[in-house]
């Protein structure tokens, strides 16, 4: 993973939060973002988009963040693609559980839109 972070697949069911994070990551961070409103949608677009990183909301109707990541891991090209969860739950053991499901980091919601891109960049670099 020596290449710089560019493409992020962002899965979030809440459209307004999705819009804010998209602007924060594109305008502030300069990343290329592909947004999806559900886990199913993410599975449909992931192969074409080929993201460097997957950013997943945990609580979603239908397939939640954990199940989505589990499905993504079944696709050979994305078996090791770094993933970050975003959640409103901040109990330490819940964060541990999410980490153990293959995410490199768990970010808490609500997030600060101005520092979100920087935070993600730092996580990416720490895991290179």
């Amino acid at each position, binding site marked *: 993973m020596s290449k710089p972070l560019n493409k992020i697949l962002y899965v979030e069911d*809440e459209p307004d*939060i999705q819009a804010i*994070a998209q*602007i*924060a990551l594109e305008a502030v961070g300069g990343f290329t973002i592909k947004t999806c409103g559900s886990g199913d949608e993410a599975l449909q677009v992931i192969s074409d988009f080929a993201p460097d990183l997957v950013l997943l909301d945990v609580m979603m109707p239908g397939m939640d963040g954990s199940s989505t990541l589990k499905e993504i891991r079944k696709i050979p090209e994305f078996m090791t693609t770094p993933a970050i969860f975003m959640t409103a739950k901040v*109990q*330490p053991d819940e964060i*541990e559980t999410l980490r153990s499901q293959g995410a490199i980091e768990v970010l808490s919601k*609500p997030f600060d839109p*101005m520092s979100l891109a920087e935070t993600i960049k730092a996580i990416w670099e720490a895991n290179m």
Partner: protein
Amino acid sequence: MANNNFNTEIYESVIAQIAHGIVLLDSNKQIQYWNRWIEQKSGITKKEATGKLLMEVYPNANLQRIDQAITDALEKGHSSTLSQSFSNFKLDLYSNAKKSLPIIPQIYVSPLKDNDKLCLLQITDVTAAVTKERMLKSIANEAQQGRQAAENLSQLKSSFVATVSHELRTPLTSIIGSLGLIKGNVAGKLNSTQTKLIDLTHKNSELLLNLISDILDLEKIESGAIEFDFRSISITNLLKQATSGIEGYGEQLNVNFKLQLPDEDLYVYGDYGKLMQVLNNLLSNAAKFSLPGQSVTISAQTRNHYVRIGVEDHGQGIPESFKATIYDKFTQLDSRDNRNTNGTGLGLAIAKLITDKHNGKIDFHSVVGKGTTFYIDIPAASELDVDNSNQQLNNHQFAG
């Protein structure tokens, strides 16, 4: 003997005057005696009644039960008490001559002690007692209904608060996010007036979000909607995380935090997230009421079966007048220079609620102008708790 001074006439007038109905029946159930009370209450004179059957005097009353009781008294020597509410008879008795105020009677039927060929009916006016009883019953019913209504209302309030808080939080999160981006010049460079207005809007939106979160927390804890996850907690971990979490806020106010950890780690039995919330409240309060350049000290020590965590500041102190209501909801002391207006007035109410749920204690001592030390006492974890918690943690990791 005094008896000799009384003749039959006197006895007669005593019985006549007695405040109960006295009716005497012979073995044929014919009325032999009818006292003045019943004359007055029934409007039937002694003369009219004497020699007649009770049935003849009261043709419309359903006297089956009374008749049976009279038969039992005359033939078997049994006594019985009949009340209108159970026996369904209807004697036309009134407490006034206009017959507008009916009497609820109770009738005691018994054989006359010294002459079992005679049956004595004693009729008592129980209107007052029955009315009172009915009233008490209806009051009790109303009270019961009131309690039920209060319970329902309290449940309704809980779910209302939870729903409303959640529904308010979602759009507010988007508002704050958008304002944050505008404030960060992402949507174009702002001039100074725009910056000022956006800052103000952003700050107040955050205050609103804090309020909603705090109200939701309070409600959840008070109603027992969230269960506490009690386990053994390392004080070193807890205090280190609490301190590093507040450092950014401290930098904004130019207040630094000093952590005094015990030589050997201590363990408490508690809910990690909730204790973190208490410490966050205490530490941000301490910073808020400190002057720039001052420091806040966090310490922990064993105290009997408790661990005492102290948060000491050197700020303005808490005035005497404020001490009684300090844990009440929505009470706030203005900090000296009012530089922080993000308080909700719920922090200490939540902190007290959480320490109470831990069977712990929260208290403080404060000297105006010198500073305040808040402390919480949380039950120390026994070795058993520590073992169990490690076990749980291991299981948890395997399950994950």
